[in-house]
C-alpha cells in the first residue's frame, strides 16, 4: 500500500512546515487514545476525512483502508462483546445457563460491543491520520523536520531511506515471484498454508540477499559522498516556520482543547 508515497499538491497541508505536521500528528495520536466519547471520536474521524479530502489525497486509497479493515473490526466488536461483561445483553447466550462450566457463554453484551466499536474507530483514525503527513510531505523534508526537532541527521536519513526502499523491495519481490513462477512454481497461487510456508525460501532468499547487496552498495555510495563525515550538515532546501504555521498550530490547540473538554464533559 502506498502509505508513504508523496502525492504532489498545493493544499494547506502540503504547504505546512513538516515540524508543525509532526507535532500535530503526535498530539492527535495521543488524543485518539484518550478520547472515549463516541461523539468526539466521530468528530476526529470526520476532521481527518475532511483534511484528506481538502488535500486532494486519493479517495481510492482511503476506501481501500476501510475495505481492508472491515473484517478486523467485525472480529474486534464480536470478541469484545463476548468477553466484556455488561448489564445489557444484545445477543442471548448460545449455550443455555444450566449447562455446567460453559453455560451462559456466547452472549454479546452492549458494553462490550460499544468498546469494540471504540477500538475500531481508534484504529481507523490512526491509520487514516499517518498518510495525511507522509503523503503531503516530500520525504527529505520529513527527514529535515525530524532533524530540526533534535534527531541526528544520520538517524533521520536512515529512517527515510528505509521508507524509500519499501516500494523498491515491493518491486523486487514481484520480480522474484515472477522468476519462480516461470519455473512452474504455483504454490503462492494455489498452495496450502503449510506448502506456502515451506516454499518461503524461494521468495525470501533472493529478496534478502538482494537487499543486503543493495544496502552494501548504497553504503559505499553514501560514504563516497561524505555522508556522516561531519556532525552538522547544511540544507539547500531549508524549512522555516512561517506565521501561517503558528496560526495553524494555534487553531489546532483550540481544537484539541475542545475535543478534550467535550470528551470529559459529555
Amino acid at each position, binding site marked *: 500500500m502506498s502509505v508513504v508515497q508523496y502525492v504532489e499538491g498545493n493544499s494547506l497541508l502540503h504547504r505546512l512546515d513538516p515540524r508543525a505536521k509532526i507535532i500535530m500528528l503526535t498530539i492527535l495520536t495521543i488524543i485518539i487514545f484518550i478520547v472515549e466519547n463516541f461523539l468526539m471520536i466521530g468528530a476526529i474521524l470526520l476532521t481527518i476525512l475532511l483534511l484528506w479530502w481538502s488535500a486532494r489525497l486519493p479517495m481510492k486509497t482511503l476506501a481501500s483502508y476501510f475495505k481492508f479493515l472491515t473484517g478486523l473490526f467485525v472480529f474486534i466488536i464480536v470478541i469484545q462483546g463476548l468477553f466484556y461483561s455488561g448489564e445489557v445483553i444484545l445477543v442471548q447466550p448460545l449455550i443455555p445457563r444450566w449447562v455446567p462450566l460453559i453455560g451462559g457463554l456466547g452472549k454479546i453484551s452492549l458494553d462490550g460491543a460499544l468498546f469494540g466499536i471504540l477500538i475500531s474507530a481508534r484504529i481507523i483514525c490512526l491509520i487514516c491520520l499517518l498518510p495525511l503527513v507522509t503523503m503531503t510531505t516530500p520525504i*527529505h523534508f520529513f527527514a529535515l523536520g525530524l532533524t530540526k526537532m533534535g534527531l541526528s541527521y544520520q538517524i533521520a536519513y536512515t529512517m527515510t531511506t528505509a521508507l*524509500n526502499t519499501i516500494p523498491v523491495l515491493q518491486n523486487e519481490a514481484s520480480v522474484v515471484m515472477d522468476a519462480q513462477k516461470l519455473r512452474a512454481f504455483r504454490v503462492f497461487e494455489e498452495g496450502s498454508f503449510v506448502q506456502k510456508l515451506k516454499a518461503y525460501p524461494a521468495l525470501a532468499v533472493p529478496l534478502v540477499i538482494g537487499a543486503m547487496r543493495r544496502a552494501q552498495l548504497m553504503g559505499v555510495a553514501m*560514504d563516497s*559522498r561524505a555522508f556522516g563525515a561531519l556532525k552538522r550538515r*547544511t540544507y539547500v532546501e531549508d524549512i522555516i516556520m512561517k506565521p501561517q504555521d503558528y496560526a495553524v498550530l494555534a487553531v489546532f490547540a483550540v481544537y484539541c482543547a475542545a475535543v478534550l473538554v467535550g470528551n470529559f464533559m459529555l
Partner: protein
Amino acid sequence: MSEPVSGKPTKGEPMIKVENLWYKYPRTKKYVLEDISFTVEKGEFVALMGANGAGKTTLCQCLNGVIPNSQGGKVKGRVVVGGLDTQETPISKLAQKVGMVLEDPETQLFTTKVKNEVAFGPENLAIDPDEIMKRIAWALKVVRLEGYEERPPTALSGGQKQRLAIAAALAMKPEIMVLDEPTSQLDPIGTLEVFSVIQDLKEEYGMTIVMATHKSEEIAQFADKVLMLHEGRLVKFAPPREVFQDLELMKLTWTHLPQISELILFLRNNGISLKDFAILKDEGVAMVKEALAGKAGRVAS
C-alpha cells in the same frame, strides 16, 4: 594517444600514487589485490580492465578511501591521492579529492529530486547553501542536465541517471573521478553520452579519470592508459595501443579487442599485412583504403 590531449595540466605531477598495495576483505583469507603499484598523472584517463573477479571494484574503492575507512579489511602498502594518504585522511577530506560513480544507477541515487541529489554531497560537507546552489548549476551544466533540477531521478533514462551520478560527484569539486563500470547497463547511445561527458571532464577541466570498463572500443578512443588486472595482480600498465597488441595478454585476461583490431589480425592471418596495427575505426579504415587503392593502382598499370 598516450599523451594527455587535455588543457594544460601540469605534466609529471602524480595525482594517484599506489605503492605495494595488498588488500583483503574482512573475514576472508585470500588477498584480492596483491602487490599493486602504479602512478597516474594529473589529467590522465586510465581504463581499468580485467575479467570479473580480477579486483577492479576493490581497486576503485581503495582509490577513494572507502576501503579501508568504512569497509574495513586488511591493507598493506600505501595509496596516495592528490597528496593525501587514504589511510590517514578522513573520508570527508577524501571525498573532495576523489569522486565516485558506481555501476548500478539505482543504488547511488537516494533523493527525490535531481537538485537534492547533486546537493547531497556538499550538504554533508556543511558547505554554505548559496555556494551549493552555484555548484548544482555548474555540475548539471557539465553533464548536460540543465533544466532537470526539479525532476525525480527515477524519471530519468539510464544514461541520464549515470550523468546525474557524475554531477553528484562533481559537486564535491574533486580532482579525480573514479567510475566503476558506469555504462554496463546502458544502451549504446546512453554509453556514448556518458563517455562524452567524461571526455569533457578530462579535456576541459583537466580531471584525472580512472574507469573500470570492458568496452574496448571506447577505451581505444578515449583512454590514455590501460591498467590490466589479472587475479588481483597488475599485469600491464601501458597505452591502449600497446596493450591491445599484446595478444598473449589478451588471451590470458580474456579481453576482447576492438573489432577494428580484430579485422587487422584477420587480414594479417590471411596474407594481407597492413603497415601498422589499428585500434581506432578511422585509422583502420584508412589503412585498408590505402591497401585497396594500391591494389587498384597495380591493376590499372
